[in-house]
């Protein structure tokens, strides 16, 4: 199959070359010659680790070599879902295995540091879930370890940086589609207790690390990090201050970690972003909004819409674009890669034929880096560190019900 055919027919369109906002990799002549597949181990087989393993298994270039978890129930689940993968209870076993080149760290956040440091020291490529850590010191240690090994791939799990729809909107916003950006807003709403059940009391305590204020950085840290990061990236802003409020409103089961948080993020240029997350209501789920003088852009479920102000200058293409109704507003559907879809004979107004989950796109980029890189990932150690610091400070603001000023030095690796 030649490259043209591969691009036209495959579901495996290389993100780095086809969807990226920047061209990198092979242009530098550093393409690696890898025969066959890369061998990957997933460390941590909780909910997210399961999703990662299932997603990796769909990629022909990946051999899911091993799954690591300290809880035997999770290893039983691993055996059911991925019988070909070895099951280990100690991550050092996969670090000692020279045939495994790559590890994905999906353990509880506060356990990342030691595993990542050991994995990098063992010469492995590392994908570390976001947030990188639960403390600034741990996050900085991870970033420094990654920075010290430029020949090894390190990608942080800031999913939206690899998502083609977000990259497409990145271009829209950076080219001035909003007019002057004036504010941003994002939310994450779900009705659930955030608690995990286990027949074993000690395991139950360990599984409920998100509800332990000693190690958890709460809703804003575990979930808000993705939306803060993508918003600042799209708007090209730096965080300057964060004010937060948090309280237990519904799940009054002895926990101290708030089930509802509201924050105001101050950024460069005076633009402020409002954010709220709750475990008490599922209404309107999750989305990000970017408001400007000429239009507002909404991102939700991996799709984007633009709402134009009536006095905004008309864009040439908007008359041809698909419009979706949102109560009394008409949103212009923003379709990533519309031009290339059109060239492939695919109706850009239809649902995206290359639609995938955000996790797939992130892992796809990570895997391709093994073949086409090494190049700096869209979400490398620096981006991961900065987003993690912001998440940790945001949680501090929530706990204090106050404001934390974010000095630039804080974000220096």
């Amino acid at each position, binding site marked *: 199959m030649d490259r043209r055919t591969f691009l036209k027919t495959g579901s495996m369109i290389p993100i780095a070359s086809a969807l990226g906002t920047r061209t990198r990799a092979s242009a530098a002549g550093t393409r690696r010659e890898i025969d066959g597949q890369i061998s990957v181990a997933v460390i941590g087989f909780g909910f997210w680790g399961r999703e990662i393993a299932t997603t990796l298994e769909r990629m022909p270039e990946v051999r899911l070599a091993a799954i690591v978890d300290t809880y035997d129930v999770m290893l039983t689940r691993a055996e059911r879902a991925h019988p070909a993968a070895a099951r280990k209870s100690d991550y050092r076993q996969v670090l000692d295995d020279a045939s495994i080149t790559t590890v994905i760290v999906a353990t509880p956040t506060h356990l990342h540091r030691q595993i990542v440091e050991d994995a990098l020291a063992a010469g492995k490529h590392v994908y570390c879930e976001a947030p990188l850590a639960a403390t600034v010191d741990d996050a900085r240690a991870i970033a420094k370890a990654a920075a010290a090994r430029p020949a090894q791939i390190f990608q942080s799990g800031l999913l939206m940086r690899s998502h083609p729809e977000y990259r497409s909107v990145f271009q829209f916003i950076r080219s001035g589609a909003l007019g002057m950006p004036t504010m941003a807003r994002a939310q994450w709403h779900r009705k*659930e207790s955030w*608690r*995990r*059940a286990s027949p074993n009391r000690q395991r139950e305590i360990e599984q409920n690390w998100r509800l332990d204020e000693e190690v958890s950085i709460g809703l804003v840290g575990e979930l808000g990090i993705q939306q803060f990061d993508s918003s600042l990236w799209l708007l090209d802003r730096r965080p300057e201050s964060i004010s937060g409020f948090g309280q237990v409103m519904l799940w009054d089961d002895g926990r101290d970690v708030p089930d509802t948080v509201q924050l105001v993020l101050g950024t460069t240029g005076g633009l402020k972003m409002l954010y709220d997350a709750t475990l008490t209501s599922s209404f309107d789920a999750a989305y990000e909004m970017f408001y400007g003088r000429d239009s507002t852009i909404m991102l939700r479920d991996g799709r984007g819409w633009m709402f134009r102000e009536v006095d905004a200058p008309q864009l040439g293409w908007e008359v041809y674009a698909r419009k979706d109704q949102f109560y009394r507003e008409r949103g212009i559907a923003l379709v990533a890669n519309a031009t290339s879809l059109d060239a492939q004979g695919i109706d850009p107004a239809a*649902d995206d034929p290359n639609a995938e989950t955000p996790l797939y796109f992130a892992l796809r980029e990570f895997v391709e880096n093994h073949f086409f890189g090494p190049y700096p990932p869209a979400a490398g150690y620096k981006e991961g560190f900065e987003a993690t610091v912001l998440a940790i400070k945001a949680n501090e603001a929530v706990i204090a019900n106050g404001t934390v000023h974010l000095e630039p030095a804080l974000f220096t690796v």
Partner: protein
Amino acid sequence: MAPRVENLTSDPGEPGHHRGTTFAPRGAEVVRLAAHAMGTRFEVVLCGAEAAWLRAAGEEALHEITLFHDRLSRFDPASIVSRINRTATRGPMHIDHLTFDILSRCVRYALGTQGAFDITVGPLMSAWGFRGGQTDSTPSNGELAALRERVGPNILRLDPDTGTVRLLHPEAEIDLGGIGKGLAIDAAAVLLREAGVPGALIHGGTSTIFAIGKGPDGEPWRVSLPAEITRDDWAVFELRDEALSVSATWGRSRESGEVLYGHVLDPRSGRPLEGRGYSVIRTASACEADALSTALLVLGSSELVLHRYRPSFVRVEPAPASDSEPTLPQPGDLREVLGGSSGTISSNGSPPATPN
């Protein structure tokens, strides 16, 4: 019709009510959770010692169900089913182990039912207007013959060596709607058991049900058929670590001339079933119950299927009727069909199970 589980039948206002049920012994908790997925409402009822722990287990179970929705929905362009329909018509497509296993089971069910259960039946469903859009269409014989080229278990090619799936017709598609609820419920039940939940009942739209352990009264979960089926008598099934699925031709039925077409379609003929009928399957797996309750409607009184899967089948087949009410089996008939299984008929229940 509200779903109803006999063990939980109580008025929240009546004396002795305790956390949702009059049957809960002192110290026991009953927690009910629900989520929307696969176009219907899934509910989990859990009973055990501690409400917060039960809720946590139930949330994980419901989350598993929504994951299956995300994977199997043909309306979500990012789902694995949508990607297969887009991509596997052009060549072998690499899929994960779980999806491969699901499709393998579908092929087994298709072969085991002589094509009465078929996940490739979508083009025919569309042609008959059972997927929205034009609902009064009646395809010609020629159109049906052309569509049947795109349908059948042989259209689906699974290669275990490469872990790939391929659809052998460029316009073929798969639709796991006939088995998705059962798959999700089985997976959710596994998680509940792993969490150590002693008693739980999960249902999807009340048509596919799985019971774990015992109900809050210490007895097997008791589930009864709806009044439309049983008229003035009730069929009550006692379930313990078992699944029950009910399928019927009515519900989304439509009329064309003097013919009443149910929404269940015979993939072998390409035509919807005529008249009214229903089937009930009771077996160890919700997935199997879900798939085979539909197949049994199509097969009618086929002894092949009954023989093949006995004794896990429970089957009820009323004669097709032309009037607006279904022709119903008498309770005695039902008891006879149930002979040899653990099912019972009683007259003190009221219906929860709604045919899909």
